[in-house]
């Protein structure tokens, strides 16, 4: 077993932001128990100032275990990243221990709070993952969030290119991503990757009245992992993970439901709108796939003007199946807010048969690609998920709650962290989103979250081309394919065993 202490956000400074007592308490605990090494995921100092680095240099030496330290946004302030190398150590590197490797990097942007793993750094990370591919347990450490975190205010404050980084880590079978940043301790299982955020070890700025804490990570020989959030009050919350390498699916039983998920039709008379592709796709949906429900996750028109809505209605009237159409940010530009209701009606909760319920969530705002659900909206969503707990619940919205490869994190909900937490903790059975122009399917905890690429808009980010998603629900599993809009070839987005309570089991 390897035991790791994961500390973060110490914010060492002579000023009141730094609390010496919890720092010494946690360091003493690390020194006197059987930890093998320590990872500090950044914000060592408060402002990146020389006097703070001098103080930090002294304070870090109190830790009598092998120590990995990487910079946070606060450390890079005031050109602090240069002082970091002088007083603390290298900004990125690799640490090996038996069958385990830690690859750690600097995700900061000088003088900004946001994070990024830029072009050369991304390439470096990829090369290191290839180099250490055969290590049994791989950890990547950086300061910034990989997925939105609850109670962080600007919850979409993930890495600028979090979608690409998450995709890279999943492809390379990284076991654990550790980070800090917003002082919120949190542990998520994202597909086969554990994402552990540490709270803050010794900064006064805790959130929601929380106390200082650190994380304890135990990695066992048989592949089990235990992550414990330990607070200075002694309170502990632990989670155990046993993530098998082999993921086997043996389909049994008849298909219960079929959904076609579409997004970003962007119907218009602009050159980027591919009318022929949309016509062919609608024909295939009607004649070949014959779904039980078609869900359009936003941006049905390019601009909210009457001409485009008229055209969009002509296309979508042709679909024979039941439909749920929700507005994206393009749909509510100009007169769109009213036109959407006029042409497609206000999205309603839809119960289908005895088992399925679809909950549309409105997140689009005027003049910005960033969405918001809001505090009342969050309560409404929570209540609905509780109310329909007995059914197979699918939440439908436009904006992303997980990062999308090849896109910047602009399509997030402002309060994406809280929304993701609500969806995961209430075990929504399925979440469908439609921003970012790229298809992806990722399970967070027990909730598969599927984003649709663009069906007929040339300005997309999908190497597969224009596409829509085909989602089949079987008694024990959900299977999602991306279907190439023109050729009909399929690519598996994900297969997930249903681990939530489902009505047909009773």
């Amino acid at each position, binding site marked *: 077993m390897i035991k790791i202490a994961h500390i973060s956000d110490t914010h060492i400074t002579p000023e009141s932001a730094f609390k010496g007592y919890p720092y010494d308490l946690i360091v003493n605990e690390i020194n006197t128990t059987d930890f093998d090494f320590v990872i500090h995921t950044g914000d060592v100092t408060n402002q990146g100032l020389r006097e703070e680095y001098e103080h930090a240099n002294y304070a870090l030496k109190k830790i009598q275990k092998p120590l990995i330290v990487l910079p946070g946004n606060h450390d890079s302030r005031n050109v602090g990243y240069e002082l970091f190398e002088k007083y603390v150590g290298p900004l990125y590197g690799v640490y090996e221990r038996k069958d385990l490797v830690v690859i750690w990097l600097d995700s900061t942007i000088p003088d900004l709070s946001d994070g990024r793993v830029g072009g050369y750094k991304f390439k470096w990370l*990829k090369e290191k993952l*290839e180099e250490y*591919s*055969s290590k049994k347990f791989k950890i990547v450490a950086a300061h910034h969030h990989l997925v939105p975190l609850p109670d962080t205010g600007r919850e979409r404050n993930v890495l600028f290119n979090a979608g690409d980084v998450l995709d890279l880590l999943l*492809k*390379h*079978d990284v076991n654990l991503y550790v980070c800090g940043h917003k002082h919120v301790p949190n542990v998520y299982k994202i597909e*086969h990757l554990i994402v552990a955020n540490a709270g803050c070890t010794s900064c006064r700025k805790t959130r929601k009245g929380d106390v200082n804490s650190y994380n304890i990570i135990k990695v066992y020989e048989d592949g089990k992992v235990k992550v414990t959030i330990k607070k200075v009050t002694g309170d502990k919350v632990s989670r155990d993970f046993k993530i098998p*390498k*082999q*993921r*086997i*699916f*043996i*389909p049994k039983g008849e*298909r219960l439901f079929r959904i076609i998920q579409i997004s970003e039709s962007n119907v218009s008379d602009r050159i980027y709108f*591919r*009318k*022929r*592709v949309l016509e062919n796709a609608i024909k295939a949906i009607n004649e070949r796939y014959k779904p039980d429900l078609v869900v359009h996750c936003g941006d049905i028109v390019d601009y909210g003007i009457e001409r485009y809505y008229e055209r969009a209605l002509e296309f979508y009237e042709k679909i024979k199946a039941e439909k749920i159409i929700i507005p994206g940010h393009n749909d509510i530009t100009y007169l769109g807010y009213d036109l959407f209701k006029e042409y497609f009606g206000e999205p309603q909760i839809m119960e289908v048969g005895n088992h399925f319920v679809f909950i549309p969530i409105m997140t689009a705002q005027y003049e910005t690609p960033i969405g918001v659900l809001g505090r009342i909206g969050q309560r409404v969503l929570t209540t609905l998920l509780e109310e329909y707990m007995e059914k197979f619940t699918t939440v439908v919205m436009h904006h992303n709650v997980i990062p999308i490869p090849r896109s910047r994190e602009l399509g997030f909900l402002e309060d994406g962290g809280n929304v993701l937490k609500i969806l995961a903790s209430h075990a929504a059975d399925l979440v469908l989103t439609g921003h970012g122009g790229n298809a992806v399917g990722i399970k967070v905890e027990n909730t598969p979250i599927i984003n649709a690429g663009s069906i007929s808009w*040339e300005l997309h980010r*999908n*190497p*597969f*081309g*224009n596409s829509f998603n085909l989602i*089949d629900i079987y008694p024990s599993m959900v*299977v999602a*394919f991306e279907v*190439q*809009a*023109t*050729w009909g*070839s*399929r*690519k*598996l987005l*994900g*297969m997930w065993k249903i681990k939530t309570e489902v009505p047909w089991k009773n």
Partner: protein
Amino acid sequence: MEEDAPIKVYMVKKLLGVTPEDSVQEACRIMVNFDIGSLVVFEDKRVIGFFTKSDIIRRVVVPGLPYSTPVKEIMSKELITVNSNTPLKDVLKVMAEHRIKHILVEDDNQIIGIFSLSDLLEANRRKLETAIARE
């Protein structure tokens, strides 16, 4: 396509399969429903066989075997595998050597993925779509 990347980056990590006693017809139904060209055969969480659509044509349809034939009788038992850390270019060499379009990927003597040549054809489909999408 990056030739030096380990095959784990390109492979499909979720294995779809049947059990040895399942009939060929049941297997074909799964292949059609999931639109895939191959299936693995599991027994006690172990992969004991593998077959493709063309194996079914060659070993069931042409010899005239009944559709109720269990898959264990027609599956390939000699599995051609590569380790998940093998670079893509070396995997392609192995596939060319055996003239196969699908290959199983193992790690620690456990089959954990499958790689198919069609996974590399994305870019062509996109280009052909762009070519005919213009008005």
